[in-house]
């Protein structure tokens, strides 16, 4: 028998409109279905404010996970009455290294990525979470399944993601309404599990940085891209100028020092990339 005590989990479920009646109900069910496996704090309804969340995370027990059932957007998880966020980039230090589980719309886009950069595991959605009133219980079941597995001790996030997708697929099969099937599939396709997968990016520079440096590529700022562009422009201008000057002398095919210098610069960049790839991908 294990002597370790069950992990502490902070559940947060504001309730202030029709959609949040459903999400609050699903959260209640999740709290009761996992109560044997985790110890919990629960901020519900009017108690689900930023102040209370920050107080619980700083003064309460050492929470391993935060479960959030309510609205969200790219920037964070929305507080009671839609007044700001309970969690966003400004208080992201409070969830450093924890597991964040949410059905909030869009949070997987920016907030989830930021949280993951802070060492969090994050399960959420990178688009709107749609559901129908025909069979809302199916969406509640699908949305909570990953956390149920975590509460029961599964810590392999790849397996959690696979199991969640299987669950969505089973629910799509048994759903009666076509519209329910459409939105279960949509939610399934926008499920993100940061740890089982690395966040992707539409930005070409970010993608290049992720390819070269692995997850460390998320640390780069815009000015790093600017630096790379400036290097490219500087190198190109120098190469062009060198070519023009050498052509003037009439012997462009002779090996000049300028060629060697530019070649050495390129070689050093490629060597650096190779070294960085090894260092950061193994980090």
């Amino acid at each position, binding site marked *: 028998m294990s002597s370790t005590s069950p992990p502490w989990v902070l559940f947060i479920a504001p309730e202030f409109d029709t959609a949040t009646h459903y999400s609050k109900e699903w959260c209640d069910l999740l709290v009761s279905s996992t109560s044997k496996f985790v110890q919990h704090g629960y901020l519900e309804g009017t108690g689900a404010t930023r102040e209370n969340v920050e107080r619980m995370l700083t003064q309460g027990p050492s929470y391993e996970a935060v479960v959030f059932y309510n*609205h969200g957007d790219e920037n964070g998880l929305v507080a009671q009455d839609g007044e700001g966020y309970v969690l966003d980039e400004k208080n992201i230090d409070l969830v450093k290294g924890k597991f964040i589980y949410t059905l909030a719309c869009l949070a997987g886009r920016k907030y989830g990525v930021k949280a993951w950069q802070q060492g969090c595991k994050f399960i959420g959605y990178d688009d709107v979470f*749609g*559901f129908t*009133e025909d069979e809302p219980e199916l969406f509640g079941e699908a949305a909570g399944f990953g956390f149920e597995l975590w509460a029961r001790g599964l810590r392999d996030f790849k397996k959690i993601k696979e199991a969640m997708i299987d669950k969505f697929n089973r629910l799509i099969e048994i759903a009666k309404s076509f519209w329910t099937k459409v939105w279960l*599939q*949509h939610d399934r396709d926008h499920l993100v599990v940061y740890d089982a997968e690395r966040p992707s990016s539409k930005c070409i520079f970010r993608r290049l940085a992720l390819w070269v440096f692995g997850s460390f590529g998320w640390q780069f700022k815009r000015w790093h891209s600017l630096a790379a562009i400036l290097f490219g422009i500087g190198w190109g201008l120098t190469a062009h100028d060198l070519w023009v000057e050498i052509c003037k002398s009439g012997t462009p095919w002779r090996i000049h020092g300028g060629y060697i210098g530019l070649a050495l610069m390129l070689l050093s960049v490629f060597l650096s990339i190779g070294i960085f790839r090894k260092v950061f991908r193994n980090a």
Partner: protein
Amino acid sequence: MDEVDELIINYLKNKDASWGWFFGGTRLSAKETIDKLKTDKEFRKKVKQAVINRLMEEVRGE
């Protein structure tokens, strides 16, 4: 609006007044969904893509 949009609208026209669903936390009745499909290009694109994805998967599964 194309034929797929028209098909989606016709499908929704058969829903009764009490029917509703949630898109990004907003409840939409069938009529509200149809109105939004007619006026909101981004919404129309997203709904159409979701429906097409479902149909594609159903076809692949058969």
